């Protein structure tokens, strides 16, 4: 248990810094370990002295504004920017005609920087304006004269997939796409996970349960609405932007504007959260093109409303039909499933996410016969894309409710049902991967025990559990490390800090290799001209991959230090170690030299410079010949496992749910930074509670957002947070990241909605098949079940 540990640590820190005389939370002071890590960015962020992209100003800077479609589907008959250009203070207006005619997209190149001929969702960009003030820019954008011919809007997921549906993209067949994509009309991609013979096994099963779940889309809602500032120097552009993926932005701008990557420098000042919505190329290419056209620097700052309406990353709507066959002893023999995933109007990373969803519909269970299809379909709605653990919480919510229904049909306790079916070390996954040492069963036992599974509860209360899994993503990543002449350290990394603390914690890994303290390092990060490549704050991959790079860079410097020390101490290299800021002969307290002295020595000769990348661990071998639409998710590298148990209280009169307690047990390999890891779980639970209870995009019949503002897109607040018991199951895996670690950023919001759903169902005796499980939906389900 590390519950409250960080509060105690912070208190201890304040006491140590004489900011507090005493600390009430503390037991005896001596029992508290020193703070493992004080974040380098902490003071800036807490005091408000930190600068975000919207805070920046450069000489001669103009302000930009976008003009968007504001209708879900239409043909552009006329587009006239004359009046906008004529407005005093306007320096440039650009449209599709002013940028290269190029389609882009991660797996399916179906989109352009600005709409050409047809608009396919309400937030699609038509033009951009640069002017001397934000107000003039907005006025000019409104003056752009657009004549649109309305086209039928495709919004219903099931109708969209039918052959008689109007097309979202008439020219879909001509688009360039990943060779593994299976496409047809509005079907942007199909992925299947197939194993054994599900049809036969289902026919032979003792009990078959089939049910259906429908989830609304939802938003990432970073507290910082995005901002982009672009400034050209000759043919080189610097872009300050709020992105999670600076290198993907750089390559995306290069691809769409026809530049070399070294003509583009992407810098992220402090990032005010992203939660996936700031992954992939955002609006940087448009702002760069606008700045070029204006001949001045241009900054665009989104309003909260634009942050809801314009990004191409919302969490996908889904319809999930699940069918499971079991033997009377509770053993699962077959799983079939059909998932329809809302791709929205354009595909960014969504085809890959469809395949992930199919894997989540399997879950971390032993299932010998599987046949799951995930269809990602185009609609005239906001494009879907990665939002923290994309498709994970939604699919887990459906699957774990489905599992409780199966358990109920069997007359089995839900925890016991899971106990009998969860994967073990040595089991074979859906596409042939063999599981190494894993701790999934322990997460179930510990989470259930922590909330007192089985104990009597007051009227209206109940406990639910949900178990899930999430992959790690082994990827290329790089870092540099230097020791300066005074013995202080500098880490230069391409990794992106999105608020999780993953980059802030890198010094822990460097310090351990070098026998130094984490606070002796300063980090330069999120600048593509400074740090080597990293894939960004995405896929919970920072510590997994950049941690490996930092260790490799530190190891180079360690070797350099030891060589210097061996000469100075006239000792054998193999006998030396770096401990407590010293190089010394192992075990000796006298034969030593400080790292600062070695650094001083090196400053006049061979500098202490390390570079690291390291090879990503291999992804498990697969035998997925029977699967189609393979984009790389058919096996899970170093999967992480988790169970949440939720105790809730339901107000039967109103359908209002209060979450009273959450236990979150996670097997994420080795935990490097307990404060940061626990923080990820607190935040993940909060986000999962939101998706469970109150966060849902409400769409009009033609596909427009009806609640694109914070009062009616209801996040959970701090006041709604229950006590959260955090527990880490230690199960280091040889194919995980350095020191046996796995990612922890995305997993914590995966099982929360499912655990809450199962608790609600047990409290009410009525199951909720729609997400979010709003009070009105709960009230409606009770009414349909015969309660007035």
């Amino acid at each position, binding site marked *: 248990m590390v519950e409250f540990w960080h509060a105690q640590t912070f208190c201890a820190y304040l006491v140590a810094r004489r900011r507090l005389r005493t600390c009430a939370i503390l037991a005896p002071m001596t029992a508290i370990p020193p703070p493992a890590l004080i974040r380098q960015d902490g003071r800036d962020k807490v005091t408000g002295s930190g600068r975000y992209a919207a805070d920046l100003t450069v000489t001669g800077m103009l302000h930009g504004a976008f003009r968007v479609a504001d209708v879900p589907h239409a043909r552009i008959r006329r587009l006239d920017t004359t009046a906008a250009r004529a407005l005093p203070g306007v320096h440039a207006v650009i449209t599709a005609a002013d940028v290269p005619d190029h389609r882009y997209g991660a797996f399916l190149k179906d989109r352009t920087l600005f709409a050409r001929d047809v608009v396919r969702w309400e937030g699609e960009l038509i033009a951009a304006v640069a002017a001397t003030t934000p107000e003039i820019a907005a006025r000019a954008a409104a003056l752009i004269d657009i004549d649109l011919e309305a086209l039928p809007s495709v919004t219903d997921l099931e109708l969209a997939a039918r052959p008689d549906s109007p097309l979202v993209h008439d020219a879909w067949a001509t688009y360039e796409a990943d060779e593994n994509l299976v496409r047809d009309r509005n079907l942007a991609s199909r992925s299947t996970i197939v194993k054994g013979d599900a049809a036969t096994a289902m026919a032979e099963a003792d009990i078959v349960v089939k049910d259906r779940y429908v989830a609304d889309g939802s938003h990432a809602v970073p507290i910082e609405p995005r901002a982009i500032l672009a400034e050209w120097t000759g043919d080189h552009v610097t872009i300050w932007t709020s992105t999670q993926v600076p290198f993907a932005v750089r390559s995306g701008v290069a691809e769409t504007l026809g530049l070399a990557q070294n003509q583009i420098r992407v810098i992220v000042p402090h990032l005010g959260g992203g939660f996936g919505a700031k992954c992939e190329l955002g609006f940087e290419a448009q702002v760069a093109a606008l700045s070029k056209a204006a001949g001045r620097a241009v900054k665009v700052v989104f309003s909260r409303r634009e942050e809801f309406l314009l990004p191409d990353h919302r969490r996908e709507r889904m319809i999930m039909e699940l069918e499971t066959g079991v033997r009377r002893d509770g053993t699962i023999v077959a799983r079939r499933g059909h998932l329809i995933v809302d791709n929205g109007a354009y595909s960014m990373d969504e085809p890959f996410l469809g395949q992930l969803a199919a894997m989540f519909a399997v879950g971390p269970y032993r299932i010998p016969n599987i046949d799951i299809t995930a269809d990602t379909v185009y609609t005239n709605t906001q494009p879907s894309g990665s939002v923290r653990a994309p498709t994970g919480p939604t699919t887990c919510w459906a699957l774990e409710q489905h599992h409780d229904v199966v358990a109920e049909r069997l007359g089995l306790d839900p925890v016991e049902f899971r106990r009998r079916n969860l994967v073990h070390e040595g089991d074979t996954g859906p596409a042939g991967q063999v599981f190494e040492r894993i701790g999934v069963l322990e997460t179930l036992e510990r989470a259930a025990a922590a909330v007192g599974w089985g104990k009597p509860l007051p009227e209206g209360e109940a406990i639910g559990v949900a178990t899930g899994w999430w992959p790690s993503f082994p990827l290329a990543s790089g870092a540099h490390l230097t020791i300066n002449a005074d013995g202080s350290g500098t880490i230069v990394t391409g990794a992106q800090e999105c608020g999780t603390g993953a980059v802030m914690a890198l010094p822990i890994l460097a310090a351990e290799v070098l026998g130094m303290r984490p606070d002796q390092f300063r980090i330069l990060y999120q600048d593509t001209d400074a740090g080597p490549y990293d894939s960004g704050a995405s896929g919970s991959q920072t510590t997994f991959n950049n941690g490996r790079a930092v260790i490799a860079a530190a190891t180079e410097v360690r070797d350099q230090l030891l060589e210097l020390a061996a000469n100075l101490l006239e000792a054998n290299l193999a006998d030396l170690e770096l401990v407590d800021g010293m190089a010394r002969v192992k075990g000796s307290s006298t034969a030593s030299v400080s790292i600062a002295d070695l650094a001083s020595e090196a400053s006049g000769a061979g500098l202490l410079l390390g570079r690291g990348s390291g090879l990503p661990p291999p992804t498990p071998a697969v035998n997925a010949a029977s699967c189609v639409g393979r984009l790389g998710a058919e096996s899970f590298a170093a999967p992480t496992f988790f169970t949440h148990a939720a105790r809730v209280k339901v107000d039967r009169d109103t359908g209002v749910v209060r979450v009273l307690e959450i236990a979150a047990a996670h097997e994420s390999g080795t935990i490097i930074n307990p404060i940061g890891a626990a923080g990820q779980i607190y935040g993940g639970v909060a986000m999962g509670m939101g998706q469970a209870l*109150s966060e849902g995009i409400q769409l009009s019949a033609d596909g427009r957002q009806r609640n694109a503002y914070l*009062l009616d897109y209801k996040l959970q607040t701090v006041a709604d947070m229950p006590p959260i018991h955090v527990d880490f199951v230690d199960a280091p895996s040889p194919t995980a990241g350095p020191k046996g670690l796995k990612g922890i950023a995305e997993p914590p919001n995966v099982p929360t909605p499912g655990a809450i759903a199962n608790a609600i169902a047990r409290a009410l005796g009525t199951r909720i098949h729609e997400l979010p499980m709003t009070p009105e939906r709960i009230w409606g389900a009770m009414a349909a079940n015969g309660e007035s």
Partner: protein
Amino acid sequence: MGGHFSAPSSLSDALTAVAAGHRPVAGGTDLVVGTRQGKWTLPEDLVALDRIAELHGIVATDGGLRIGATTSHADLAADQAIRERWTAIADAASIVGSPATRHIGTLGGNLANASPAAETSGPLLCFEALVEVRSATGSRRIALADLFSGPGRTAIRQDEIIVAVELPELAGAGSCYVRLEFRRQMEIAVVGATAVVRLEGDIVREARIAITALAPTVRRIAAAESSLIGSDGGPAAAAEAGRLAAGAATPISDVRASLDYRRAMAAVVVRRAVTGAIARARGETLLIPASASTFGAS
């Protein structure tokens, strides 16, 4: 570019500015937020009221309280007299928006904004408060029942500002404001209800019941009130009052809830407000805000 912003410390300067067409602004929690949300454009000329000392504060009067228009929700919620004798106002003021909203948002602003979902309106209506408005040429009192003419519309003229709310006391009354809450903070009323009752022995002798966010303006429901008078205020009587109030409501369907759900919740929330008011009239403890206990927690 026009635009004039002043922050006078005297009421007469503010009244002069308002007479010249400047829009008064107090906490700005509706005006500024609504602007950012695109509901309206920010008026060019603004006069801020927050530096005018005489508009701020709560003082006891012969028959009750006089509350300055720029008194914050947080100050209302913390006032001992209000908590003890006008408890429904404390229930309401302590759940407006978030802690930040409550510290900057004002009672006068809440009334002038005239939202059918405004928290303080229902309790003030039931306590039969008077709103004192002033212009450069004089002042007048408007009964709260006559203040609202529709969503966002009031009987206040453009050259007038609210200076105070006069709050008469209903001796011995118990009162309660309950709001349906989907989350614990940053909430807006989807359904709200106020009940003010006075008992003689075990019998309800006086009852005032108002519904919030269930009609174009906050309003009292006479049928529900008369059904409660003469009853014991027990579960059946509270439920009947709820049923009658729900029947008199004219709810709408929107992104927050459907008409059917709102009507069903009207009955529940009125019942709970009545039950809470009865309990308080009997001297039983029901924590402020009542919503937190009724939708509540552990």
